[in-house]
């Protein structure tokens, strides 16, 4: 679905954020992108929908090459890629419903969107999505009245109503508490499963990445240093990605536990410092 070839990004300051990255994400695959702050995770996904202009390389969405599209073709291509942001990025003074419907902007003309006269099918879909994430009763609340977890759900609805082929998810849980983080991650993964979406999830929480995705890519200083299943993420690999630290506890926590128990225990581990070992 998505194929990235020799993607490179050099900022005007001269910093090389991405060094010739090659990556392929097939249809229906949810992939976690891990790495320390400043590794270029955010730059990578922003180069895909060109919120950041790549300096070299190619990006293919299906058969369409994105890196050299003109502005109107780029807009059409962007409608096929949903994006979910770290700080939710809802337009705070618009209502929940307007925020969700703003995902359809690429499909309706200016005057229709200005008068808020969206096609009934869009509105039905918006209500379906809000119901799916449990927020249909909040449709007319203003976005800044919502809690963090609720805002992120609205952000997910906005991305999904685009009817995208690909989801770009940028640190979805960074501003959330541990429990909500898990709920949001589970929701994103379930929705991708239901709709057979490809997704790239930027995440710095290795535990969450291991718990919810089947493929992990490690990025360090703009280059891919690991690409494989979560259970092969050894302390050596983590050290290579993040630097020296004691990784045993992190890996222990996910072994031999089913997900829900892991949820609770991982939180406990974070608080207390040692994982328990229930039979």
């Amino acid at each position, binding site marked *: 679905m998505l194929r990235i070839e020799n993607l490179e990004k050099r900022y005007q300051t001269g910093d090389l954020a991405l060094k010739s990255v090659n990556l392929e994400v097939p249809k229906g695959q949810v992939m976690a992108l891990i790495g320390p702050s400043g590794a270029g995770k955010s730059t990578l996904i922003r180069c895909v929908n060109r919120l950041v202009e790549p300096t070299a390389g190619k990006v293919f969405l299906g058969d369409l090459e994105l890196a050299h599209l003109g502005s109107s073709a780029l807009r059409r291509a962007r409608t096929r890629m949903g994006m979910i942001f770290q700080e939710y990025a809802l337009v705070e003074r618009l209502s929940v419903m*307007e925020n969700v419907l703003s995902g359809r902007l690429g499909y309706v003309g200016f005057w229709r969107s200005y008068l*808020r006269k969206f096609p009934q099918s869009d*509105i*039905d879909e918006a209500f379906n999505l809000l119901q799916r994430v449990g927020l249909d009763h909040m449709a*007319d609340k203003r976005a800044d009245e919502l809690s963090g977890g609720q805002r992120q759900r609205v952000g997910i609805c906005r991305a999904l109503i685009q009817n995208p082929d690909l989801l770009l998810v940028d640190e979805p849980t960074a501003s959330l508490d541990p429990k909500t983080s898990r709920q949001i991650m589970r929701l994103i993964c379930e929705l991708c499963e239901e709709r057979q979406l490809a997704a790239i999830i930027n995440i710095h929480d290795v535990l969450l990445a291991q718990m919810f995705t089947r493929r992990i890519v490690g990025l360090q200083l703009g280059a891919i240093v690991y690409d494989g299943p979560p259970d092969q993420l050894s302390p050596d690999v983590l050290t290579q990605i993040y630097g020296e630290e004691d990784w045993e506890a992190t890996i222990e926590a996910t072994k031999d536990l089913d997900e829900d128990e892991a949820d609770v225990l991982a939180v406990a581990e974070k608080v207390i410092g040692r994982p328990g070992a229930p039979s």
Partner: protein
Amino acid sequence: MPTRDHNGSKIWHLRSTKHQLAVWFGWLLGVAIFVYCWRLISDKTIWFFVTDAPKQAADMASRMVPPKWSYMDVLWGPVWDTINIATIGTMIAIVIAVPVAFCAARNTTPSVHFVRPVALFIIVASRSINSLIWALMLVTLIGPGVLAGVIAIGLRSIGFCAKLLYEAIEEIDHSQVEAIIATGASRGQQLSFGIVPQIMPAFAGISVFRWDINIRESTVLGLVGAGGIGLQLDASISTLAWTQVSLILLVILATVIVSEWVSAKIRHAII
């Protein structure tokens, strides 16, 4: 509720019908008021002059170039006066504005029921009258000249400075003051240790900001006889000496730009 069920699918509107009508009605009312005002103005306008204006403007512009540079010798004095009006006027205003502000701020006023309303009235009266009107008044009362300009600028600026300053005083961090009170300090000590250090940057910023505005305003006070470069502007326009007018406009422009630069520098140095 903006949403309602219709044939099984929910229909969504941004606003309920009643709200939507209110919005439309508001717009209608606004447009009607505007059109009405415009009609009244247009009735008082001689449209022949308006259609003739581009020609007039071109004519005036051609008479304005080149500026009469030699006239500059006469202008140095008025420029000096203009700067003095703004500077001394601002100083006077600050000296008076500080006690007024402390009386007007809810947390420092000696009496909420008597002193505060008086202080607030001083602020409103000073602010609502333009400095040109103050100058007009003072020229009638104490005669034309720089002094009228200085007092006019001073009176107009009291309200401005006092308003911003008392808002700054009301927004201070109260816990710092509490800490000073807890040491057993007297009211005067609370003021000088708890409140003054917190409002000092705001105070300096407000003074410089007002000085900058006052330079602009003092360039026109001469139009009513209150000194400064406006006197020359008025005289040159009434004698149709357009080359002098263009030079004066350039001088005003330069003064304003320099004062803006100076105030930006000072603000930078303080903060």
